[in-house]
């Protein structure tokens, strides 16, 4: 049977969800899908739109898997608009003059920002905040010299998000709200006051109860905003950029033209299975009006996509009411959540906790007779939100001591109560409407990692906010099923790395034999030996090759050099911050020339000399040390390079001395042994020439200090670092890095870079901040002391080796024939000596 034709109008978040579901679940290849999208690019994550200003790229935000673009069953038409429908003939007309015949049509055209009919609203410099193109245009406009003030008209959720973007663009930011307080739809007055105080502290100017009467300007663009009711001679607010954020309107124009029923206040009217009034046409997402309501959030839209997909390719399920909207977000660093009923009516009581000093305001609305939680507002501290939202929706019963949830300290969240307490119907992932039941089902079917659960249920693949809960659920389910998750590092130790670290630290073990006889079995292996070596070294136990530690190090550490494919070694001297003197360059050149070493600039801003025999290493390093350089630890799971740009010493854009800071960081943490290698970088301004956001520790200069990023990674699975702290001074920066690195060293798995560690850390970035910045575990003093001990006891391992004849004597090829050394075969390439080609074999993994 020839496939039937499905036409999806609009390639936004919800339209794309439908395409994913239909194509992914269409086992019988019953559908051929045509997608017409007005924007020039594939659908992207609009919810995370603002993160584009923080460096996430179009590719990061894309929701369309690259394979899908070439999928035989899907035909994407970007940059095209459906202009008209012939609903009888089932044909759609496109703006390029073509037409598409369909059997089923789904309208997913979303909504459009509402721009109030104010004089001057079309002036250059006026924007809305909805698409990537909007953001790019804003950024371009704001980048012009002399433009320094921006205003957002509208103080709702989106308006405040836009305000944050203006701040990020370096503009003095104003927010103008017509209502007497911010976020009138979600917050009551006291809660909004608390929010206003917090945001004002951050330098944003808030004007509530003000309505804009005109935008003034000329051909060069906006100049000022004039308010209604103001004195005629009052000065207007001088601005260079205006963003309208005064609500959204469903894009139902196509439906109206085609005789499809729309709601009183707009939106295509749909029934429980998302069908419109016209046969063969459905609507989903923000353009749809269900039970008299248009939803401005993505979760209800996803639910609608699921309903339609089920109808087209599945068994056919009924829609379920998306329920009262709940919102949790961090606005400019202020936690903010509202859920269910936020204002008490007749049959309700209000419980309020308000702390003007800490600027925390929490309100719960409780049914006066039954005591059931109906809804609430949390400002300044959203602790417990997940559990409270479940109580409000009836998925979890309200405890009699609900009052104890008011004050943030005593609050329990799902994370502490345990997900066991939840019924199967409890929604865990609100982005993708995944319940506890379906996650447990996936676990029972063998999905035993958070990633695997995401792959089969989509849980955790949206905003990621539910990942800690999914993780908790996974562990407790596995526990219940009696599956022991094998955390042992290997057959010789019944511990994971963190437990081993704690044991060694607690018992103050100083040698392998102590550790093995106290906690292990057998002779150890290539896994546990280097782990123990690294832990002993992290705890500053002196020269890494002394005593029986010598037998722990893999060959790179043992030779203090990197083994190459032909049995020779490479030499990587430390070049802190990438700064090297001409004299050192000349010395390295001489050494390489004399020993015939292949020379290459590494990807880490240093120089690598390849092809040294084991017995040549001491002589070569002697020369390197004499040139004033030291070990670069390229061989160790340790700090590698701290990359830098030239910074304000030379660069016309630089705002801080990035080279000095990079050198300071590199010298402080050199030699620090860790679960995996650690890389860092310092950029002198936001142009980010040192690529700091791809490093474990990234530092970017600001006008006021430094922004610290953590958890970046290149390599196999690249990850952008997360912004951890902003505008900190030198001392704070170093203190945070000290704590961050030591906490990582204590708690990470073996061979786990900071990126993977952070992704798996329960509580994620917020938890990390609370440990490192707020000292929530009370361990910061210890972490700093451990680091101080490292800094104090640091010594160049090559200097220590060469000083001691016994250590030096290890570097012979054959113990009984010191003068004989096996010279591998060489060939020449581009004027340098390289190994003879060998046949490739598989490595053991």
């Amino acid at each position, binding site marked *: 049977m020839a496939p039937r034709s499905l036409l999806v109008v609009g390639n936004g978040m919800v339209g794309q969800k439908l395409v994913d579901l239909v194509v992914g679940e269409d086992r019988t290849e019953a559908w051929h899908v045509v997608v017409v999208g007005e924007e020039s690019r594939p659908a992207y994550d609009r919810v995370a739109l603002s993160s584009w200003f923080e460096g996430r790229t179009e590719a990061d935000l894309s929701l369309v898997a690259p394979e899908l673009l070439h999928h035989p069953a899907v035909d994407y038409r970007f940059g095209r608009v459906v202009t008209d429908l012939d609903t009888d003939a089932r044909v759609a007309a496109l703006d390029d003059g073509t037409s598409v015949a369909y059997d089923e049509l789904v309208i997913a055209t979303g909504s459009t920002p509402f721009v109030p009919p104010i004089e001057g609203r079309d002036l250059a410099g006026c924007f809305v905040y909805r698409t990537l193109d909007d953001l790019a245009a804003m950024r371009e406009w704001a980048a012009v010299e002399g433009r320094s003030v921006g205003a957002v008209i509208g103080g709702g959720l989106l308006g405040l998000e836009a305000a944050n973007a203006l701040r990020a663009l370096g503009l003095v930011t104003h927010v103008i709200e017509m209502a007497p307080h911010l976020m009138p739809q979600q917050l009551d007055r006291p809660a909004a006051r608390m929010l206003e105080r917090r945001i004002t502290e951050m330098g944003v100017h808030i004007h509530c109860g003000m309505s804009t009467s005109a935008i003034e300007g000329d051909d060069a663009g906006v100049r000022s905003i004039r308010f209604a009711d103001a004195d005629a001679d009052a000065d207007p607010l001088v601005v260079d950029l205006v963003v309208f954020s005064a609500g959204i309107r469903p894009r139902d124009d196509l439906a109206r033209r085609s005789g499809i029923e729309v709601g009183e206040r707009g939106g295509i009217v749909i029934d429980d299975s998302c069908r419109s009034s016209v046969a063969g046409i459905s609507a989903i997402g923000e353009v749809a009006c269900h039970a008299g309501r248009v939803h401005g959030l993505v979760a209800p839209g996803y639910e609608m996509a699921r309903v339609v997909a089920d109808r087209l390719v599945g068994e056919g399920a009924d829609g379920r009411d998306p329920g009262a909207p709940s919102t949790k977000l961090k606005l400019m660093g202020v936690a903010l959540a509202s859920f269910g009923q936020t204002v008490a009516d007749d049959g309700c009581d209000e419980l309020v906790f308000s702390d003007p000093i800490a600027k925390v305001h929490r309100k719960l609305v409780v049914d006066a007779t039954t005591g059931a939680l109906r809804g609430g507002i949390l400002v300044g501290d959203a602790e417990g939100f997940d559990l409270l939202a479940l109580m409000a929706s009836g998925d979890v019963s309200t405890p009699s001591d609900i009052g104890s949830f008011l004050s943030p300290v005593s609050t329990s969240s799902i994370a502490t109560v345990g997900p066991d307490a939840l019924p199967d119907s409890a929604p865990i992932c609100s982005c993708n409407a995944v319940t506890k039941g379906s996650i447990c089902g996936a676990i029972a079917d063998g999905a035993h990692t958070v990633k695997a659960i995401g792959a089969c249920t989509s849980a955790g693949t949206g905003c990621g906010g539910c990942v800690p809960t999914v993780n908790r659920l996974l562990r407790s389910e596995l526990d219940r099923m009696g599956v022991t998750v094998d955390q042992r590092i290997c057959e010789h130790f019944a511990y994971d790395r963190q437990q081993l670290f704690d044991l060694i630290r607690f018992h103050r073990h100083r040698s392998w*034999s102590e550790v093995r006889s106290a906690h292990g079995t*057998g*002779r150890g292996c290539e896994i546990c030996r280097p782990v123990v070596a690294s832990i002993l070294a992290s705890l500053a136990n002196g020269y890494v090759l002394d005593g029986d530690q010598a*037998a722990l190090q893999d*060959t790179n550490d*043992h030779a203090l050099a990197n083994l190459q494919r032909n049995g020779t070694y490479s030499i990587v001297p430390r070049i802190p911050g990438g700064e090297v003197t001409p004299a050192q360059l000349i010395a390295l050149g001489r050494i390489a020339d004399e020993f015939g070493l292949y020379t290459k600039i590494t990807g880490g801003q240093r120089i690598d000399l390849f092809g040294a025999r084991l017995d040549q290493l001491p002589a070569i390093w002697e020369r390197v040390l004499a040139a004033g350089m030291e070990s670069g630890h390229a061989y160790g799971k340790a700090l590698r390079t701290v990359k830098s740009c030239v910074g304000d010493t030379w660069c016309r854009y630089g705002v801080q001395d990035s080279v000095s800071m990079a050198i300071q960081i590199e010298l402080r943490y050199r030699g620090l042994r860790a679960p995996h290698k650690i890389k860092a970088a310092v950029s002198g301004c936001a142009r980010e020439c040192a690529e700091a956001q791809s490093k474990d520790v990234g530092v970017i200069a600001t006008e006021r200090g430094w922004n610290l990023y953590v958890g970046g990674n290149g390599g196999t699975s690249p990850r952008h670092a997360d912004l951890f702290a902003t505008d900190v001074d030198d001392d704070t920066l170093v203190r945070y890095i000290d704590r961050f690195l030591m906490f990582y060293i204590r708690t990470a798995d073996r061979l786990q870079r900071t990126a993977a560690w952070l992704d798996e850390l329960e509580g994620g970035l917020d938890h990390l901040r609370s440990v490192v910045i707020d000292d929530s575990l009370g361990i910061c003093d210890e972490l700093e002391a451990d680091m101080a001990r490292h800094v104090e006891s640091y010594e160049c391992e090559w200097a220590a080796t060469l000083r001691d004849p016994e250590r030096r004597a290890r570097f012979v090829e054959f*113990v*009984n024939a010191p003068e004989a050394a096996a010279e591998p075969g060489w060939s020449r390439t581009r004027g340098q000596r390289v190994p003879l080609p060998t046949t490739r074999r598989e*490595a*053991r993994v």
Partner: protein
Amino acid sequence: MTAIDTTTEMWTEVCDLDTLTPDRGVAALLDGVPVAVFRLSADVDSSHVVAVDHVDPVSGVGVMARGLVGSVGVRDVVVSPLLKQRFDLHTGECLDDPGVWLRTWPVRVADGRVLVGGVAPPAGG
């Protein structure tokens, strides 16, 4: 294991036992043939000093003496530092790739000196 004739002159002196670090190898030349000699730590029950080929049969490069020593169950093994295959130190058998093996060599410790016998037993142990 075959009885070894320790009276012939086929034994080559490698080094003093004291210079060997437990669970770490050294390479030596046996009439031009590179062998890897390991002293196993004494607290684990097994014969004390063993010798196998120094040349890693997987890469063809002389690196086995630089490998890490460990155990898999009751077997003592050395791990190739290049591509990480594990070899039984007493039989030469490769645990990860049945197609390759190390030859093993007889070892004798006399007067604190380590001697390796000059005739390699048949490959595969």
